[in-house]
C-alpha cells in the first residue's frame, strides 16, 4: 500500500509538472484545426516554455514582489494540485482541503496581482485589477457548488466528496456550477479578460520576460490543470469509485481531462472575449440562479 502510495504520488507530481504544457498543446492543435489550419506541433508549448526558460529576463523594477511573484505562483499552483486525487491516492489530504485548494490556488492569482501592481504600468495594473474582479465574481458560484456537495456528502475533503456523493437534482446542477466556475477561473475565452492580449497586452505578463515569464506561464498552466483535474476527478470518480485499481481510475481521469481540454478548445474558438463588466454581470446572474440549487440541496433533492 505504501509503495503504491509513493508511486502514485510520484506519478502525480510528474503529471502536475509536465502534463500541462502537453494539454495546452493539444488545446492549441484543436483550435488550429477548427480554424482549418495545420497548427503547431502538440509539443509546441514545451518548446515555447523551454525557450522562455533559457532566456535571461529584463527587470523593469528591482522590487522583490515583482521578482518573487512567478516563483510563488508556481509553488502555489503545484501545492494546490497536490491535494487532488490521483487514482486512489491523494498526495496530501485532510479535512476541509477544498478550501485550502481554493485559497492556495488564489495565491497564484495573488502573485499575479502583486506582480502586476508592483510597478507603475496601467497595463499590468489593469490586468491585476481584472483578475481580482474575476475572482470576486466567481467565488460565490464556486461556494454554492461546494456548499451543495457538502450538504450532500457531509464532507469537505476533495478526495472523499466524489466517493460519498449521491446523485440528486441539486448535485447535478452543482456539477454544472462547478464546471462553469472552473471554466471562468481558468481564464478561458470568453473569460480571459485578465490576460487579454489585444486589449491590455496580457496584463501583468506585459512586464515579465525570459524565465520569469516562463515560470509564470507554467504556473498558470498548472493552475488550469489543477482546476480541470478537480473537475475531471469529480466527473470520473463517481463512475469508477467501485473499481479498486488505482491505475484504472487514474486513466479514466486522464481521459476525461483530455476530453475537457478538447471541449474547451472548441468553446474557446467559437467565442469572442467578453468585457469585464459583461463577465461580472453574467457571473452575478449565475450566482443568483445558483441559490435555487442551494435551496434544492437544503431541501434534500
Amino acid at each position, binding site marked *: 500500500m505504501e509503495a503504491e502510495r509513493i508511486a502514485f504520488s510520484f506519478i502525480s507530481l510528474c503529471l502536475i509538472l509536465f502534463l500541462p504544457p502537453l494539454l495546452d498543446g493539444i488545446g492549441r492543435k484543436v483550435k488550429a484545426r477548427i480554424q482549418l489550419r495545420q497548427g503547431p506541433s502538440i509539443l509546441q508549448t514545451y518548446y515555447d516554455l523551454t525557450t522562455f526558460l533559457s532566456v535571461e529576463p529584463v527587470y523593469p523594477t528591482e522590487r522583490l514582489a515583482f521578482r518573487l511573484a512567478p516563483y510563488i505562483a508556481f509553488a502555489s499552483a503545484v501545492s494546490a494540485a497536490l491535494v487532488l486525487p490521483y487514482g486512489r491516492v491523494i498526495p496530501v489530504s485532510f479535512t476541509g482541503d477544498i*478550501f485550502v485548494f481554493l485559497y492556495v490556488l488564489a495565491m497564484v492569482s495573488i502573485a499575479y496581482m502583486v506582480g502586476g501592481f508592483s510597478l507603475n504600468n496601467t497595463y499590468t495594473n489593469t490586468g491585476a485589477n481584472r483578475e481580482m*474582479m474575476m475572482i470576486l465574481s466567481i467565488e460565490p458560484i464556486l461556494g454554492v457548488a461546494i456548499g451543495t456537495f457538502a450538504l450532500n456528502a457531509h464532507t469537505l475533503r476533495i478526495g472523499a466528496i466524489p466517493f460519498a456523493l449521491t446523485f440528486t437534482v441539486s448535485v447535478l446542477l452543482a456539477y454544472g456550477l462547478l464546471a462553469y466556475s472552473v471554466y471562468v477561473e481558468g481564464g478561458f475565452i470568453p473569460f480571459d479578460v485578465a490576460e487579454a492580449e489585444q486589449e491590455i497586452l496580457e496584463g501583468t505578463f506585459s512586464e515579465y520576460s525570459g524565465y520569469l515569464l516562463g515560470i509564470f506561464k507554467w504556473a498558470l498552466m498548472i493552475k488550469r490543470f489543477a482546476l480541470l483535474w478537480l473537475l475531471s476527478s469529480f466527473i470520473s470518480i463517481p463512475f469508477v469509485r467501485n473499481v479498486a485499481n488505482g491505475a484504472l481510475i487514474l486513466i479514466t481521469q486522464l481521459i476525461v481531462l483530455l476530453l475537457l481540454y478538447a471541449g474547451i478548445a472548441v468553446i474557446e474558438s467559437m467565442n469572442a472575449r467578453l468585457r469585464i463588466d459583461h463577465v461580472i454581470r453574467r457571473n452575478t446572474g449565475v450566482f443568483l440562479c445558483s441559490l435555487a440549487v442551494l435551496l434544492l440541496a437544503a431541501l434534500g433533492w
Partner: protein
Amino acid sequence: MMEELFTLTVILYLLSILVVLPLRKNYRASITVGHVLTGLASISLLAFTVGSLPDVLKGKAIEFTYNLGVAEIPFHVDGLSLILCLVLGSLGLATSIYSPRYMEFYERFGRSWLYVVLYSAFVLSMILIVTTSNFLWFVFFWEVMTFTSYLLMIWENDEEYVRKAGWKYFVTMHVASTLPLIISLAMLYAKTGSVNGLDFDNLATLHLGPIYYVLFLIGFGSKAGVVPLHFWLPDAHPAAPSNVSALLSGAMIKVAVYGLIRTTCFILRPTEALGYTVAILGTVTLTVGTLYALKQTDAKRLLAYHSVGQMGYIWLGVGAGITLIAKGYPAFGAIAMAAGLYHLVNHAIFKGLLFLSAGSVLYRTHTRDLNVLGGLAKLMPFTALFTFIAAMSIAGEPPFNGFMSKWMIYQGTFLSGDGLLVFCGIMALFISAATLASFVKFYTTAFGGTPTTTTEKAEEVPSSMLIGKGFLAFLCLLFGLVPSSIIPLLLTPGKALTGVDLSGWISTKYWLVTIRAPRMPAGGETYFNPWLFVGVLGVLVVAMLISYPNRPKRIVKVWTTGEPVKAEHYKLRAMHYYGPFEEYIHGLYHGGDALSGWGTYVCSSLAGGYLSLGRTLLRWAEKVGKDVLSTGRWYEKNGKEIYLDEAVASPFVQLMKGLGIAIEEVSLSYDLLLMLAAATLGVMMLILLGW
C-alpha cells in the same frame, strides 16, 4: 499567585496615571514613562494569562474580589475572559511599544498627561470589563470605556471631521449601547434588588425573558458595529490616532462580543433563534462592511470598514456555534464557536497591526489618502513586510492566522448540514475574496509601484514602532502556523457551555488540527498541517530560485508602448480599483437614496417620542446660535451620496443632528468637554454607588 499578577497589572495602569501628572510639562518624557508602565502592565497581564491557562483549561475559573471599602468588585476569570485578556495584553503591549514615538506626531496638541491617563483608563476598563463578574460593575466599566475611548478619539479635535465622528460615536453609543444596557440593568436590579444579586452566577439562575436577548443584542451589537448599527464605526476609528484606532478596532469592539457571549450564553440560554439571528446579522455585517470597504480610498477608513466586515465573521462563527449547540450538536457547536473566537483573536492582532501600519505611513507621509501614496515598499521595507503579513492574514491566505480561523468558520458552516448556515458560509467565502481584493488595493497602492511626490521623502519608522508591529506580525504567524497553541483555550467556552467531551471531534496535536462534522462519514480524517504546506511551498520556491537565480543586473524602463508617460500618471489609482465591479453593485451602495426617504418616514412615525427629544434639542440649539446650526446643514449638504447604511440609520442621523449641534458647541472647547465628561461620569458613579 495569578491573582497577584492581575492586581499588579491593575496597579501598574493606575501607577502610570499617577506618574505622568508631575511630568506633564515634558511631552515626550511623560508619554514614554507612561507607556513603559503600561507596557509592563501588559506583560504582567500576558503573564497572568499564560499562568492561568493550565487551570482554566481544566475548566476551573479563577475567582477573587477587590474590596474597595465602599464597594466590592467580584472577578471571575474563565476561558472566555482569558481569551480577551490575551488580546488586551498583546495589543496593549504592542501599542505601548509603538505609541511613544508615534505620539510625537500629535505633539502640537500637548496635554500628554491627559493622553496617558485616558489610555490607561481605557485599557484598564476593558480589562476589568472582561474579568468582572458583576453586571453593575460591568456596566460601569463599560461606560468608562466609552467615555475614555470617546475622548481619545477626538484627540485631533481641531479637525472638523474628527469632531463630527466624535459626537456621532458618543451619541450612538449612549443611545444604542449604554441605554439598552442601563435599561436591562435597571430591570435586573428591580428583579434582584441588590448589587450582589447582579453577579453573573446569580443572574444565570433566573429565568429571564426574551426582552433581554433583544436588549443585549442591541447593546452589544451597536458597540461591535453590527449592521445596521455600524455606521458610527467607519467614521470613528479613522478619526482617532492610529495607536488608539488599533485598540478601538482590535480590542474595544471585541469586548462587545465578549459581552454578548457572556450575557446571552452564560446568563441567558443559547437558543436556536438567537443563534440564527447572530449568524444572519454576522453574514449581513460581513457582506455590507466588506463591500463598503472595497470602495474606500482612505487607508484608515478602509480598515475601519473591514473591522465591521471581520466582526461579521466573528458573529457568524459565534452564531453558528450557538445555533448548533442549541440544535443539539454540542461538540460541533463548540467548534464553530471556537472558530468565531479564533477569528476574534486573529482579527485583534492583524487589525491592530494594520492600524499601526497605517499610522506609520501617516507618520512619515502625513497622508492616508491611498490615491496619492505609492512606492513605500522601497522606502519602508519592514513596514511593508509587516503590512503584507497582516494583509495576507486578514485576506485569509495560508499559512497566516486569518486562514486558520476562516477555515474553521467554513467548516463550521458548510458541514452544519443546515442550508441557511451553508448560505452564510458561502457569503463568507465570497466576502473573503472581497477582503482579499480590498487588501490587494490597500497594500499595492500604498507600497507598490514607484514613489510619488507625496512619498518620495519617506523613510522607515523608528525601531520602537517597528518592534511593536513586529510583535503582532509574529503573533500572526504563530497563531497561523501553530494553531494548537491557542485552540484548546478557544474551546473552553464551548466546553463550559455544553459540558461535553470534545475528544474525537476536534483534536490538536502539536500544530495540527482536525475537525469532524456531526454527519461526516467516519474515518479518513487527517490533519491539516500548515507546516506541510509551508514546507512544500518553500521547497518549491527555493528549488526554482536555485534553478533560476533572480538577480537583476540592471533595471530597464517600464514599457510604455513606446511613448514616454510620467510614472505618476502611469498607474491605476486606488479609486480606480475594481471600478466595473463596484459599478455593478452600485445599487447596494446607493440604494440609500431611495431608502432614506422611506426610512425617515417610517421611523419618524414609529419613534415620535424619540424624535421629539431631538426636536427639543434642536430648538435649544437654535438658541445657541445660528452659526452653530450651519454645522448641521453642512452635514446634510455634504452627504451627497447617502449610503445604505446611513439611510437605515436615518433616525439616528435625525437625532444626532440635534444632539450633535449641542455637542459640537461643547467640543469646541476641549476643557469644557472634559469637565462635562468627568461630571457625567461622577454623577453616574454616585448613582451606582448610592444604590
